[in-house]
């Protein structure tokens, strides 16, 4: 495990403040790998290893000695997979980690979530029909508007909401069709359309 990477001057200087020579560092590393070095010196060794590739190679060779003595070498021989693993990890982190998001890459899950939200919006809207809004408005102490006017005024935004909702559903369905996804929102769209009918019926 001959390492060609040279240690940077600043790192050497930094480490030199606490661990004087390479030999002393190696002695500490030998004790550390056996779990016999703790505290500040152990931390320095760990930092030194992180900063210096040649020391990581030395660590690997020290472990190789143990592997040979314990007959831990695979029959296929010595292969260093560390660099391949590292390359894969680096590649992994250079690509956006969208997969970490709970629903990412699951269009069906997104569709289902959107449908549930939509269903609850429709349900809430149907609860807040003229009767209840009349009561709400009338119950407000600072309301000066007559009850009948309040009901009509309440219906108008409701109708506006549903038309926005219809538009949203149509856009969403078209977007799904464009991306090649089956138009799963269509049943909900027709359900929403039928749900808005009574609202139009009450409006003057």
């Amino acid at each position, binding site marked *: 495990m001959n390492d060609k990477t040279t240690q940077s001057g600043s790192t050497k200087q930094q480490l030199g403040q606490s661990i004087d020579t390479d030999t002393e560092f190696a002695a500490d590393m030998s004790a550390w790998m056996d779990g016999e070095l703790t505290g500040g010196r152990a931390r320095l060794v760990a930092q030194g290893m992180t900063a210096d590739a040649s020391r990581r190679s030395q660590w690997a060779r020290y472990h190789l000695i143990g592997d040979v003595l314990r007959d831990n070498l695979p029959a296929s*021989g010595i292969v260093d997979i560390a660099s*391949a693993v*590292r390359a894969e990890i680096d590649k992994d982190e250079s690509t956006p980690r969208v997969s970490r998001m709970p629903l990412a890459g699951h269009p069906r899950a997104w569709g289902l979530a959107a449908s549930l939200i939509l269903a609850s919006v429709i349900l809430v809207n149907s609860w807040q029909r003229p009767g209840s809004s009349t009561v709400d408005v009338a119950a407000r102490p600072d309301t000066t508007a007559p009850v009948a006017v309040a009901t009509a005024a309440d219906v108008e935004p409701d109708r506006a909401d549903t038309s926005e909702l219809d538009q949203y559903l149509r856009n969403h369905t078209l977007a799904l069709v464009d991306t090649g996804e089956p138009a799963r929102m269509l049943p909900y769209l027709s359900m929403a359309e039928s749900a808005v009918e009574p609202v139009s019926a009450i409006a003057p």
Partner: protein
Amino acid sequence: MGKRTPGAGVMPPMGDAGAVDQDLVKRVQRGDKTAFDLLVRKYQHKVIKLVSRYVYDPSDAHDVAQEAFIKAYRALPGFRGDSAFYTWLYRIAINTAKNHVAARNRAPVSSVSEFGNEDSEVDFSARLSDIDTPEALLLTDEVRRTILSAIDALPQDLRTALILREIEGMSYEEIAKTMECPVGTVRSRLFRARDTIDAELKKIEGLT
């Protein structure tokens, strides 16, 4: 300061080396990728050997071992240290190997086509040359011979300390009692033994 339990494959080689693993794991969890590199270098041979019990093709075994390490790296943020790192890694490696074998058994057509059509033959030979097993075997032989002859050439006290540590898994304190010397002397003997062998290993061409 746990001794190795003979035949207990899940046990890490040393009792207290687990503390070092824990330290390295914490470093990885804080974003230090080189700490994971140290864990890979420490366990790669052991993991490849373990995986080879299930996956007989050497190149596949290396791929599976590599995959196991990558899976471990990705899962490390969730590793809380309830078990030793190697025990955890061992499970990942075994599962990865078993999944590989199951996937291979589910795809008999592809294994036939590996030898059956021209494209696959090219691919297969390319994989062999990638791994270059004969060279790896020669290197392994040379490394093994170098290490064993260097140990033979060590002064008796250094050799004994190294064997008690690496094969018997004794702690420094236990070695000190056995060899009737201070713990500091054990520490120094072990380092001198490793350093002497390492000097020989450095001379081997191709040992990366």
